[in-house]
């Protein structure tokens, strides 16, 4: 299986939106490769004709009536936001520039 380079670790950190320090990136490079080595054992298991298991109970197609129902009050939701204007959650600029 693959080995992660420092650039790979930085790429995965970006995908995961984790801002990591140089020290963290360096430590993770060693630790993640050590953990990936443990995954190697799986390549010895023949699974060509084995279906994947995503869940273990035989519940399927859970349906409910499509009717409106009350949601949380606006104040209750806004109370946890880092920034709000009593109507909406305020977010930093999403597009670049001013």
């Amino acid at each position, binding site marked *: 299986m693959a080995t992660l380079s420092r650039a790979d670790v930085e790429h995965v950190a970006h995908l995961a939106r984790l801002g*990591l320090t140089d020290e963290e990136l360096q430590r993770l490079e060693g630790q993640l490769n*050590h953990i990936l080595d443990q995954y190697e054992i799986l390549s010895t298991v023949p699974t060509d004709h084995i*279906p994947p*298991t995503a869940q*273990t109970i035989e*519940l399927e197609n859970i349906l409910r009536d499509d009717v409106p129902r009350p949601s949380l009050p606006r104040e209750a939701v806004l109370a946890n936001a880092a920034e709000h204007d009593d109507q909406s959650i305020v977010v930093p600029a999403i597009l670049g520039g001013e």
Partner: protein
Amino acid sequence: MIELTRIHAHHMAARLRRGEVSSRELTEAHLDVAERQNDRLNAWLSIDRERALAEADRADARLRDARAAGAAAVAALHPMLGIPVALKDLVSVEGGQCTAGSLILKGYRAPYDAHITERLRDVGAVILGKTNMDEFAMGSSTEHSAYGPTANPWALDRVPGGSSGGSAAAVAAYHAPVSIGTDTGGSIRQPAALTGIVGLKPTYGRVSRYGIVAFASSLDQIGPFARDVRDAAALLHAIAGRDERDSTSSPQPVPDSLLRLHASEDEAAGALRGKRLGLPREYFVKGMEPGVEERIREAVEALESAGATVEDVSLPHTDYGLATYYIVAPAEASANLARYDGIRFGPRLGEGRDVLGDYLATRGRGFGPEVKRRVMLGTYALSAGYYDAYYLKAQKVRTLIKGDFDALWAEGFDALVAPTSPTVAFRFGDRLEDPVAMYLSDACTLPVNMAGLPGISILAGLSEGLPVGLQLIGAPWSEPRLFELARSFEAVTASADWRSLEPTDLRALDDPSTPTPAERMAAIAVVDR
């Protein structure tokens, strides 16, 4: 007279019904010891005395009304009415904190009750507070909490297991008779084993997870801790059942037999007669301590002497469990934890200049080292080019692991018997620098999650003065039988000297000169912190 905090919940329930004690008295007794000792134990992240006493008064009113209405009304009361309970700090209680052991949820106040919180209110249980845990339930020692580790009441320089270490330690130290944990790879059973109490991970789908902080959604389940089997069964009865807000919760009936486990040791012991149990040889893993193996072999002898047959069986894909779990669980976690962005809830730890910079800063500073490691692993396993090699492969091996168990149920086994943890409680810092060593703590528990099965851990004796847990694993929805078997084991070992021992270091918890768990950690040079 035995202190109010030392008796079982079913004894409390009997005394509440007879009017010999009030829920307020019980609640105050537990709050007093919890508040007095928590600096040295750090089992609790929050204790809400005012709310708890208000709930206790409501329970007392319900008890008075029922007694006035007559014997039938009293008999209809749930055994959890008026009983103090501790919740792992990932269960939503409206208006209360819910940190999941993480800085990224510091200051968050849950805007609604979890389903199980509603159920506990319905039956009249009294919520004392919220307990410590590994951050986002990722860990096997509670050392990965952002709020400092929890100590083990049996040896204050050792871990209580994890991730539900606070809930386990609180029950073991008599701060609460019962508590709630969650179990994704062993997070109820392993701390139950390491603190010498009972802990059950129910069948996947048995308990609604609405209002619980999610870790790995195809594995997570909620379950009870208690100091005896009957109390654990009664607490499961209170929280189990279908809830349409969690579409994975099952309509399987929750039998009232959970409330009728035998009280007498003789009757309880009889349940083992003729039962067919399997002993999976792969669970005696490399690195298992000899003292743990001895206690498990003795437990097998006790089960046999009570009339059960115990056969050597094989779960041939067990060795692949660890690798499979450490792909599936981090992959699901990386998706579940994408929601922590510092915008809708939790502190925003960036400069507020651009949204990407804020994401990176909030998540980089808000998550601890183990959570970052798992999010990285999961993101990698799901990323373009690696999905088939890791995630899909792991899901296929998961099919084989589940198939191993299915084959044994098809052969007619009533349950499997195994160690819960390969070792007794380890010292603070011992496994922090090597993530793989920490992951091995769950080698005997995580296959059960992979297969969605119920498993229970119960005290089976001591090794080097520390508790050893026996694990019983059952077919889907077999919790009533698992509890019956565990109750039988409790009964046939009732006269063993270790059954009546109290945790060794309880007295040190009352000594102000005892170091706090954080002080103990600070004295250890650990690279990962």
